[in-house]
């Protein structure tokens, strides 16, 4: 197969795919309960008509078109059609509230918007005054939109139909489209992806076509992806992960991208589609395992004991078998039986039966969790990347998998550790600049062309793989000089199923304190088993027994921390369980569900103060934002518990 090669824009790749793979499935989606397939030829046909339709509406080269919606085929087709006219697609998180939307749309000077449905159209209309350049909104689903003023509103279906009619009426138009595709250059801006903004307002990362494709070619080759692979495109459209893993790799390898019916049906769709390439953040794997374990607890005794027995077998031999290492015959036979009775059906239930390559990234994954999935035969690997790199910086090759590293540099990527401990890289897919922000661009690039990731990390001596510690600017020190890496502690805490989210404080303080969010699924199940009555999340979170349980978890972590000399002093002394879950709508998390540490510290300054003034409880009243943008207040009295810390062994203390 001619992989990528001389192709420097996605529309050119689309032409190649239509010629080379023709009737192979390119895009699938479920309509009225039945999976519908579009072949590469059909996709090309639609995209050509769509591109012509958009041109008629006035979309030109270098115009920006925002794309707001879930993973619907029309949204992906919009990306392709926009790139075909050499315009710039700007996907936006579909759950963004109007304010966030207005910032991104305004900053990107969008002339066009492609919205999925009434909800998104309404949001755009509500911020219209901030969008002076906006010409037309096109939309996918017309429900509820019939009575809207259609002077600047058009259904995507109609845009495509118009384009088709124009193509049919004028024979020379097809040649013009071909010429337009041929005129595309590798240096064209392929897409602008707005970062989720862990550190302040989001920045528009400009990626060029040739670089995107070069990056994707490398990883497609690395994981040997072909036109016979299938991926389920369920990640947020605006996230680099979806654009890279599904869109870019899909076009480069020619594999099929399946769109789920809706966000709630992903689990079912996964089972029906049976993807061969799968990506999920650790959170998803964790939820899957938690649910699985809870259901196993409810299973009959025979099934349960069978499950636990074969899980032990898997733990012993599974990973070695997956890595192709020598395993005794008896082990292979036992594992084989286990595959038939437990692992196979299990993977089938999870929709992972056909997965050849699975990745996880974004956060650290718990070693137990990681080993569990690998031991049942799922080829789960880790990668490290960021939007500025067009995803991949490092990734783990088959056979070299470790739970606590993110792997060696991806093909053609150069990684170095700066003197400050910061990870810096140079990669084929790296970004061109931040949109309209040369100052930030200059700040992020080094003089010799490396990109600063802002993450602190080091190369593991044993394996040669990269290890990420934390965001460089978040790493601090306690008053006594002990290293304080908040993310490291929080990840350790989050490995406990009861703890969904944790935020630790300690920089410049005497000791470390933690705010905890309990995991409702796990804790409510535990409550049910132990006859603990509660009326709401808030009530459950404040329950003394829940406090005790979480306290035991943290104390356990403290014990294990005592063995790690560098951070033994950073054990958690005090903690509280928050009365509400941290929410992206309240600005406490990013849209990719990462904690915005500084924001949380500001918002809950009163609680942080209470941590360090020795109070046993404190009152809090915070503003909460509902999904529809309305605001309300939520108040509670929160208890603070103290925890014992484990003494650091004397020799270590001296060493530290």
């Amino acid at each position: 197969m001619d992989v990528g090669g001389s192709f420097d824009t996605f529309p050119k790749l689309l032409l190649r795919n239509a010629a080379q793979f023709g009737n192979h499935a390119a895009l699938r989606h479920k309509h009225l309960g039945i999976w519908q397939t579009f072949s590469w030829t059909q996709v090309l046909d639609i995209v050509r008509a769509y591109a012509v339709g958009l041109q008629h509406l006035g979309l030109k080269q270098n115009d920006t078109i925002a794309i707001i919606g879930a993973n619907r085929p029309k949204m992906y087709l919009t990306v392709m059609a926009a790139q075909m006219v050499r315009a710039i697609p700007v996907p936006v998180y579909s759950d963004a509230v109007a304010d966030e939307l207005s910032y991104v749309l305004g900053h990107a000077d969008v002339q066009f918007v492609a919205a999925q449905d009434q909800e998104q159209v309404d949001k755009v209309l509500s911020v219209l005054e901030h969008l002076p350049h906006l010409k037309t909104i096109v939309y996918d689903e017309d429900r509820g939109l019939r009575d809207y003023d259609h002077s600047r509103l058009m259904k995507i279906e109609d845009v495509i139909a118009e384009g088709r009619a124009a193509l049919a009426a004028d024979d020379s138009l097809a040649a013009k489209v071909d010429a337009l595709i041929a005129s595309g250059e590798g240096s064209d801006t392929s897409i602008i992806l707005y970062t989720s903004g862990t550190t302040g307002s989001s920045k528009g990362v400009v990626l060029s076509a040739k670089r995107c494709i070069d990056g994707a070619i490398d990883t497609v080759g690395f994981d040997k992806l072909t036109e016979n692979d299938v991926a389920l495109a369920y990640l947020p459209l605006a996230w680099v992960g979806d654009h890279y893993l599904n869109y870019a790799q899909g076009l480069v390898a020619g594999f099929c991208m399946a769109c789920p019916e809706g966000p709630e049906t992903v689990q079912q769709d996964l089972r029906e589609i049976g993807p061969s390439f799968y990506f999920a953040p650790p959170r998803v794997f964790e939820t899957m395992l938690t649910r699985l374990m809870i259901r196993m607890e409810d299973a009959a005794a025979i099934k349960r004991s069978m499950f636990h027995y074969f899980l032990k077998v898997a733990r012993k031999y599974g990973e070695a078998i997956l890595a192709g290492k020598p395993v005794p015959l008896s082990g292979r036979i036992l594992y084989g039986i286990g595959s038939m009775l437990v692992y196979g059906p299990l993977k089938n239930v999870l929709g992972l039966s056909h997965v050849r390559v699975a990745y996880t990234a974004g956060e650290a994954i718990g070693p137990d969790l990681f080993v569990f999935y690998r031991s049942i035969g799922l080829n789960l690997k880790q990668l490290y990347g960021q939007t500025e790199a067009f995803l991949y910086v490092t990734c783990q090759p088959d056979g070299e998998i470790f739970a606590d590293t993110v792997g060696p540099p991806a093909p053609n990527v150069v990684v170095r550790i700066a003197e400050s401990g910061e990870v810096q890289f140079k990669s084929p897919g790296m970004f061109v600049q931040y949109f309209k922000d040369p100052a930030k661009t200059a700040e992020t690039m080094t003089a010799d062309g490396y990109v600063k990731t802002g993450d602190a990390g080091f190369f593991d001596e044993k394996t040669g793989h990269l290890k990420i510690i934390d965001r460089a600017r978040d790493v601090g020190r306690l008053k006594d000089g002990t290293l304080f890496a908040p993310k490291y502690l929080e990840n350790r805490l989050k490995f406990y199923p009861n703890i969904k989210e944790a935020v630790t404080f300690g920089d410049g303080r005497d000791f470390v304190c933690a705010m905890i969010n309990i995991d409702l699924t796990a804790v409510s199940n535990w409550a049910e088993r132990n006859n603990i009555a509660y009326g709401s999340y808030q009530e459950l979170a404040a329950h003394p027994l829940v406090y005790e349980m979480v306290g035991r978890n943290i104390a356990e972590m403290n014990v294990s921390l005592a063995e790690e000399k560098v951070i033994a002093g950073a054990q958690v002394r005090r903690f509280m369980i928050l009365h509400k879950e941290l929410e992206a709508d309240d600005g406490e998390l990013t849209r990719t569900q990462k904690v915005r540490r500084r924001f949380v510290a500001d918002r809950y300054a009163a609680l942080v103060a209470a941590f360090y003034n020795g109070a046993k409880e404190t009152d809090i009243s915070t503003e909460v934002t509902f999904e529809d943008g309305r605001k309300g207040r939520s108040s509670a009295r929160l208890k603070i518990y103290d925890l014992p810390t484990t003494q650091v062994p004397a020799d270590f203390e001296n060493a530290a």
Partner: protein
Amino acid sequence: MRLPDVSDVLLRVESVSLAFGGVKALTDVSFDVRKGEIRAIIGPNGAGKTSMLNVLNGFYHPNQGSITFKGKTRTRMQPYEASRGGIARTFQNVALFKGMSALDNITAGRTLKMHCGLFWQALRFGPAQREEIEHRRRVEEIIDFLEIEAIRRVPVARLPYGLQKRVELGRALAMEPELLLLDEPMAGMNLEEKEDMSRFIIDVNDHYGTTIALIEHDMGVVMDLSDRVVVLDHGIKIADGSPDEVKKSQAVIDAYLGVAH
């Protein structure tokens, strides 16, 4: 824009009275429902709202008065005649088949539209199969419309109340009714569920052009949703008109807030 034609009356209730023994549930109530409108029937507890709805779909037979539906006047109508005639309803307390999936429940709403005999249906072959595929398509359209794809296969007993209500609405829609009767569609719902349900009711009216008569307690919802409102109190009609007119009516204010005697 939907603009109900004043002349186009779909259902006319004339001087209906209903008594259970000595209890007068309805006394001489008259009103009409125009094609394409959303008509609300409101009133304090025990005002006779549900009785009125039961009279409309033939479950109760009025002691006096007549009901004219699509130009045909009847005094006694059986519920099955009402559903064949194009009247569908939902219930105040969800009345679904608890052990069946959402999909099966909605499909049950299409029973009256199935024409193949028992023989063909048992074989599930030929015409029966073709018919079933067609019905399934209609059901899937409703599932898509109500955004309940994720619970297609879930037994309704396991669903939260708000979703059960939505499935029930789906089953009523499966009958492709001309007149849809909703008995307290938002009872027991939280704000978000109420907003969702309101949107679906408006969408049903707008998309399918279905005429809707609904009973509701939540005044805010009623006033936002309906084109016209009829107010009952102690089985007597005390007001009839647009939401604004009704809101201003002294009789209505008295009925809801009570009068100093």
